[in-house]
């Protein structure tokens, strides 16, 4: 059974690799993969264009490849996509403009959580101190 699962994992790994594109150099290949994994397939929202089999995704992969071969930088290629599809196409929204709050809010929420947590713990600690004194006096007669 274990072997079967393992075999399935190995086979499915290749079966689901929808993108047969190879770039002329390993450096370009790495950049190509990084970019395509960071772009949302607009037809299937939670897939990247690297692992979506739909036609639009393969067209966008073609564009990424062509732009890379034309010597464009990663930032220029992402800008090309954002210009057409908006920030929503990026899995990592930019740390500026209206999407800044996406980055800032979790930090504020986490700090708020720590603040509330500390307060609760302190209050409990104070209550326990008082309890101790009560318990001490009550327990001693037993």
């Amino acid at each position, binding site marked *: 059974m274990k072997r079967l699962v393992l075999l399935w994992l190995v086979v499915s790994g290749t079966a689901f690799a929808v993108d047969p594109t190879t770039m002329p150099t390993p450096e370009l290949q790495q950049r190509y993969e990084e970019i395509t994994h960071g772009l949302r397939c*607009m*037809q299937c929202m939670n897939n990247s264009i690297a692992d979506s089999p739909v036609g639009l995704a393969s067209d966008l992969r073609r564009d990424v490849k062509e732009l890379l071969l034309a010597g464009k930088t990663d930032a220029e290629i992402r800008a090309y996509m954002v210009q057409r599809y908006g920030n929503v196409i990026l899995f990592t929204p930019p740390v500026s403009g209206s999407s800044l709050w996406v980055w800032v809010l979790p930090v504020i929420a986490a700090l708020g959580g720590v603040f509330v947590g500390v307060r609760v713990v302190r209050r409990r600690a104070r209550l326990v101190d008082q309890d101790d004194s009560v318990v001490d006096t009550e327990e001693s007669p037993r």
Partner: protein
Amino acid sequence: MNRFILPVVLFLALAGVLYIGVRHSPNKSTMVSALLGKPAPAFELPVLGDPARKFNSRELAGRPWVINVWGTWCGECRVEHETLLAIAKQNRVPLVGLNWKDDDEAAQQWLAQLGNPYGVVAADREGRTAIDFGVYGAPETFFVDADGIVQYRHVGAMTADVWEREFLSRLPKAAMP
């Protein structure tokens, strides 16, 4: 009393954030085009049925026009076809078809069978013009104003209601017959 203020404020803040998130979720029908307020991409493509002829989007410069992205492989396109025919009959604004990643023969057959609402159909065989328009699923319909600026994008089947509310309303009064 005092100890309720902080939780209530936090709750309201979270509710507000989630509300915004839900309202702006990337829903197919509400996703706003990145091209709004920007110049429509220029393109030159072979004309469906007459590939020797090229259609250049500059031919429509100086007047408002509408571009509808469709394909014979697209189910919703069939749904909206009747509406497009009715729109074409009104003859209020040039309607350009962008036949997206389709087969020439199938597309021509479709128009012969169902009727042709388009003034001209550009054949986008490689899907490049569609990508320039930020198209992610057919049908999509764009309103381009006389200055060549994209003013509206509708995703999904066109309806008489959407046409009146979002497209006709954007036509300048002078352009009306």
